[in-house]
């Protein structure tokens, strides 16, 4: 059964995955999303299983839909990527499954967004529905800031930035938690410490091991299941009164800072999952 790795830029994570596949002698081919041309009249695709590692939400979303329509088993599935790549859809999926998440309001005009921000109270957090690495996430501390940010988005933003996703601000204890889930198992987690309120390691957050047994692992697994499951990274927030909330779920997770920190060989666990998926597909193929 042939395995393809859909990717664009080769990050540290992709190199680690390639190295793990090579170490095990697993045959695979890189599929560069920049070179892809799908002939939509063709009903087949020369791979049975594809691991999606594209850096682009748009490319992966559409590529996976085309692949799945041609019988390719994708990790993660297109519906999972569609949910995780859009913060509104993630929030909706979490709420439907009873997974605790920060209170979130949605509005479509600067006037209604301002009213929504005031309804939540200051500070509030304004996020683009599509985006990653902590970019364009704004903590709004007062009405002056709200009016300024909303006006800038109204004038300069794309249509997607006119979808105002407004969240209650959680006073984190100087850290948040990222938990990694592969299939039905929360495999490890890290605390991400930062002096800044945005704690992404992409923005300089410092990683420390976080025990994944107990509440963190349980909630991470529930969040992963809420969005459809697969290979996922779940970002959790700790509230001042001791609750855990799910902030977001990442479908093409970066993990370079979490292997040594946790002692868990994350790329090996991902490859385990991919190989198992190949076997499942193979058995189904043989009927």
């Amino acid at each position, binding site marked *: 059964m042939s395995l393809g790795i859909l990717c664009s830029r*080769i*990050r540290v994570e992709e190199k680690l995955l390639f190295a793990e596949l090579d170490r095990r002698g697993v045959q695979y081919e890189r599929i560069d999303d920049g070179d892809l041309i799908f002939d939509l009249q063709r009903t087949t695709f020369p791979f049975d299983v594809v691991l999606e590692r594209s850096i682009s939400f748009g490319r992966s979303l559409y590529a996976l839909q085309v692949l799945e329509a041609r019988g390719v088993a994708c990790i993660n599935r297109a519906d999972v990527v569609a949910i995780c790549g859009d913060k509104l859809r993630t929030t909706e999926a979490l709420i439907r499954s009873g997974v605790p998440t920060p209170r979130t309001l949605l509005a479509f005009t600067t006037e209604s967004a301002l009213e929504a921000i005031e309804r939540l109270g200051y500070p509030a957090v304004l996020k683009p529905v*599509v985006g*990653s690495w902590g*970019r364009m996430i704004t903590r709004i501390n007062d009405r002056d800031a709200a009016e300024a940010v909303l006006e800038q988005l109204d004038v300069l933003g794309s249509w*997607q930035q006119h979808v105002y996703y407004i969240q209650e601000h959680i006073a984190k204890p100087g850290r948040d938690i990222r938990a990694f889930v592969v299939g039905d198992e929360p495999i490890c987690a890290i605390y991400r410490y930062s002096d800044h309120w945005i704690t992404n390691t992409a923005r300089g957050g410092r990683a420390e091991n976080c025990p994944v047994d107990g509440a963190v692992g349980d909630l991470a697994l529930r969040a992963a299941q809420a969005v459809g499951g697969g290979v996922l990274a779940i970002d959790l927030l700790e509230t001042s009164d001791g609750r855990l909330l799910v902030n977001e779920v*990442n479908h093409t997770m970066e993990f370079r800072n979490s292997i040594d920190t946790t002692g868990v060989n994350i790329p090996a666990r991902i490859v385990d999952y991919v190989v198992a998926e190949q076997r499942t597909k193979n058995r189904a193929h043989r009927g």
Partner: protein
Amino acid sequence: MNCPECDATLTLDADLIEGEIVPCADCGAELEVIATQPLALALAPEIEEDWGE
């Protein structure tokens, strides 16, 4: 191999693969490996709105 942006001499790993991003230590430009045999580098594309994890 020199940086296509600032012409500084680059110190590069031997195991570079196509698609990998390497920074120029002198000017900070992100360079993409567009071929390995022979090695060819170009300025990496700017980050797009939908990029991430």
